[in-house]
């Protein structure tokens, strides 16, 4: 295999570091290379939507503005290496070559994930039947019926352990759940406005499978961004199972948990995207933490309950929580509406 494009880019960076004339983009160059040589999947650095744009850039076209939010590390180099006087980017020859290699590699990996699978039993077209108040028995409530079945993935879902770590790099341990006498806890999905989108009780410790299955089973369309404290490993987990469903999803570690991830590159961190995506700057990435701190109010009571009471108690808590958040938003909206005529 030819690694000359990688070597050329490393050499270019090496020259920049050695030169006395400090360039603004030297640091950005280093950050980009750190992501290239990290253990993360190429699809984390080059998402599916960026492949064609990156390919065009490598062929000599000017960088497409859409590339910047898709590959923030590259976008930051473009921002810092741009000379507005002569409308040119400096020192980009090696970067163009590497871009081509990365686009090609991302394309190969994505196609490999999409095609190297065989459907043994086609999922039924109809969604799984749901009886009213069935959640009281199952402990799984997402406010909507399931959209599709979660397939059995032969070759990935082992019978012994459904969620074993598949990478040597970043592992997160759930020390709180190690008490064998208690269940795995509660998995909840939240929107940035602190509304709970659903929950399920986990018989065993939390894992990536819980998030993957909840998203795949209950949502018609995959979200654009999934923020999770173990997102660095959630991304390959989801992409290896349902690459087409998750092809446009960005998996990112929230700011609060980013410090604990020493083996992952910046490509997995929300702060990386905040630099170039104005729409995510105001996202409260720790919304789940805020809401979960609220859930700790019922922790003690639940620890003494049986299953049906624990489910009902959690359900009531989250319904009341959502109602309160909705009322808060409503009153904020009303206040803003009242302010409009005054400003005019």
């Amino acid at each position, binding site marked *: 295999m030819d690694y000359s494009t990688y070597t050329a880019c490393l050499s270019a960076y*090496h020259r920049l570091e050695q030169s006395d004339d400090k360039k603004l983009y030297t640091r950005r160059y280093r950050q980009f290379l750190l992501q290239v040589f990290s253990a993360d999947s190429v699809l984390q650095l080059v998402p599916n939507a960026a492949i064609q744009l990156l390919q065009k850039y490598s062929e000599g076209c000017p960088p497409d503005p859409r590339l910047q939010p898709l590959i923030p590390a590259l976008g930051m180099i473009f921002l810092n290496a741009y000379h507005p006087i002569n409308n040119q980017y400096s020192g980009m020859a090696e970067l163009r070559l590497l871009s081509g290699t990365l686009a090609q590699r991302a394309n190969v990996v994505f196609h490999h994930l999409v095609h190297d*699978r065989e459907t043994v039993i086609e999922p039924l077209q109809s969604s799984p039947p749901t009886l009213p108040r069935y959640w009281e028995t199952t402990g799984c409530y997402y406010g909507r019926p399931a959209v599709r079945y979660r397939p059995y993935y032969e070759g990935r879902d082992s019978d012994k352990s459904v969620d074993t770590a598949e990478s040597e790099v970043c592992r997160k341990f759930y020390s*709180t759940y190690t008490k064998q006498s208690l269940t795995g806890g509660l998995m909840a999905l939240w929107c940035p406005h602190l509304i*709970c989108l659903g929950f399920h009780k986990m018989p065993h410790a939390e894992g990536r499978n819980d998030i993957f299955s909840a998203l795949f089973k209950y949502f018609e369309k995959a979200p654009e961004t999934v923020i999770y404290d173990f997102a660095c490993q959630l991304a390959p987990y989801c992409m*290896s199972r349902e690459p087409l469903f998750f092809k446009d999803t960005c998996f990112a570690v929230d700011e609060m948990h980013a410090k604990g991830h020493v083996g992952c590159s910046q490509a997995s961190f929300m702060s990386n995207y905040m630099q170039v995506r104005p729409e995510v700057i105001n996202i409260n990435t720790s919304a789940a933490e805020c809401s979960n701190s609220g859930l700790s109010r019922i922790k003690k009571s*639940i620890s003494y309950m049986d299953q049906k009471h624990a489910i009902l108690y959690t359900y009531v808590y989250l319904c009341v929580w*959502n109602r309160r958040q909705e009322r808060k938003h409503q009153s904020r909206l009303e206040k803003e509406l009242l302010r409009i005529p005054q400003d005019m």
Partner: protein
Amino acid sequence: MFLLDDSAQCSCGYVGTYDHDNILEDAFIVHTSTSALECKIQTVYCQACINTRGRIGSDLGSYGILNWNNRVGFAHELLNNYTSQFTSSETPFFAFHQTIINAYVEDDSPVSFCRLQTFQDAWFAFIRLQEIGSTMQCPICGPNPAVIIADGVAVSFPSHRVESLEPPIISSKDKAWVRLKRTTMKLTSFPGPTNLRKSVYKALNQSVREERIQKLNEEFAKFLVINWNFSY
């Protein structure tokens, strides 16, 4: 006096006719947040479960009372009070029960508050009757939110009390089955040897500039060997 009305029902579910000549008047205690109220209630033997001494009594929902067993009732205000308490601050049943006992003592209630277990059972029964649902949908984000934040929290109950949990992770080969081919293909951006990738990453990650340059020089030598092997 709570009279028998159209809402009258036995605990067995019977809502049919009853013998109007056998209507009895019994003592009925209504628990509120501050005191117990001594009232009367009309009841009649249930024709469907007469052998079990089942009695038909009014529902009392329209009076804002949960008729627990035709002898004791709970004001909706008391039960809603607990819902409000535990969703606002950490309030286990025991703590709330104790608070109500204290309030009864202070208010010189004619009857003391019920047992903890009775209150707990009544609250769960009340919650099942209440329409307290949520669509679990953000009015701003809609049914398919662009951003989802996922997190697990250790709100757990004893493992030995698990009966029928069905988390979404459960899959069935009968419903949907996908065979993923085993592969040794690397997914990383750099497809070369893992050791080389790791050492370059380490070199780039050096915080001191001079050390970084030094380490990178060493890595270039390794690249040259690999590229040379590739060429020949």
